[in-house]
């Protein structure tokens, strides 16, 4: 079953300057893709290739200038208020920079309960219990619920963000470079956590990244982007074979596993 798809999506950013002429930069050009229930798709590309913009279009945070995003069979642009709510419930996102993705004035409990109260419609004692359950699920102590973001480390805070994304029991979580800011041990811990959650809940992931190593480890399918376009789609094999120039360049940039000198 197709959860979410993009059909011929384009996005143009315009920069306005004081002296008239505005410059238009095409960041996405005729992009189409499908994400099915329960699968883990990698969106692989260099920084600036448009993959984060695509993630924002897929979550409805921005609108495409051409083409459409389909939730099931319905275009996001045509969704009513209630339908939008069920879309938000089904599709969540985890951002790269966990510190920037939480309100510094909110407690952990407030951060995680926001989608519970707005999307699921539970409050009070139920909500508190649900927050405790979610924190446990991402490997945090429920006692951390009263802490402020500044009192937590980057890795802990990213777990809070994952708990927030899990809260409405989504069918798809878009991970926008969600582990890139963490050190390697934490990256692997997070990927293991995502895998556990997938087993337990059947959630699908769109894993936006530039790191091919993580794709090989974590995903079942890869979509390679470069310069605003989809260049290649492939099933994951080990080692991953990519044929497009963009894919091969990313492959070649992978750092060696072992030192090469004598």
């Amino acid at each position: 079953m197709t959860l979410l798809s993009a059909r011929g999506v384009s996005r143009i950013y315009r920069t306005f300057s004081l002296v008239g002429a505005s410059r238009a930069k095409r960041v996405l050009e005729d992009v189409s893709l499908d994400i099915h229930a329960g699968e883990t798709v990698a969106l692989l590309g260099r920084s600036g290739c448009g993959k984060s913009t695509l993630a924002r279009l897929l979550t409805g945070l921005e609108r495409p200038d051409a083409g459409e995003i389909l939730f099931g069979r319905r275009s996001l642009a045509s969704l009513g208020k209630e339908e939008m709510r069920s879309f938000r419930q089904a599709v969540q996102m985890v951002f790269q920079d966990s510190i920037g993705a939480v309100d510094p004035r909110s407690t952990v409990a407030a951060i995680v309960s926001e989608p519970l109260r707005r999307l699921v419609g539970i409050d009070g004692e139920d909500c508190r219990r649900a927050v405790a359950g979610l924190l446990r699920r991402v490997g945090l102590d429920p006692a951390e619920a009263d802490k402020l973001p500044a009192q937590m480390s980057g890795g802990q805070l990213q777990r809070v963000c994952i708990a927030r994304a899990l809260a409405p029991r989504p069918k798809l979580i878009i991970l926008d470079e969600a582990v890139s800011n963490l050190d390697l041990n934490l990256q692997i811990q997070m990927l293991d956590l995502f895998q556990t959650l997938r087993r337990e809940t059947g959630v699908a992931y769109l894993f936006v990244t530039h790191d091919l190593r993580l794709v090989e480890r974590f995903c079942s399918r890869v979509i390679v982007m470069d310069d605003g376009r989809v260049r290649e789609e492939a099933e994951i094999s080990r080692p991953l074979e990519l044929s497009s120039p963009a894919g091969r360049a990313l492959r070649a940039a992978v750092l060696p596993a072992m030192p090469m000198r004598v």
Partner: protein
Amino acid sequence: MTSRCLEISGLTVRTMCDGRERELVSGVDLALEGGEVLALVGASGSGKSMTCAAALDVLPPGTWRAGGTVELDGQVRTAREVRGAYVATILQNPRSAFNPVRTMRSHAHETLRALGMGRSGRNARVEAAMIDAGLEDVPRILALHPFEMSGGMLQRMMVALALMSEAPFLFADEPTTDLDLIVQREILDLLERLKKTRGLGILLVTHDMGVVARLADRVAVMDAGRIVETGPVMDVFHRPAHPTTRRLVDAHLSLYPTLSPAEPAT
């Protein structure tokens, strides 16, 4: 260039936490020679960046250096003497290291002024450093503002500014963490070339063992503010002695599923 040696000994950093003094870096000893890359690795929060900052006395507010000396070729120097003239620095996020409203030219001139260099010969030195850092189109790039440049270009410019000082040592604090892998490779290639051609001694702070494997000659592993293991890169990868080191190497190798951990490097 004469082979120099930079020796850090007994470096200790403290801070106040909940009204108590806490040690963030405890008695760190490091020795860096010209023409080698020493990688300082560890998990985030292990004190590796703090060590770098303490050696140059550029610690964040609220922390202070409670002990330790920096020696250059056997002579004790103050951080002030060392900074800039003997040790240049490049940081993780090049974008925040540049003043957004000033051009590259103005940054270059500021660096040279800070080094006490007169007007004559400035342009030649700027041009040489930039070409060495892989920024070929010197006049065009000098006119650019930070927002007109990519992260990779900015990091090259950081390297160029470091080279302008002609300091024999370079502290690189997570120099490629914010860059995509393709740019990362280019910057690492650049650092390796500079090590060879300029005899630069590089202290490379990183959490990525892939970067270490690519570039380092020797490795110092940090955990909870202490150096737990130091050794040649081959030994660290093939015969890690300390549990922290083993954890780092194992986690790293788990990203290479086609490579069994015991497989020797070619």
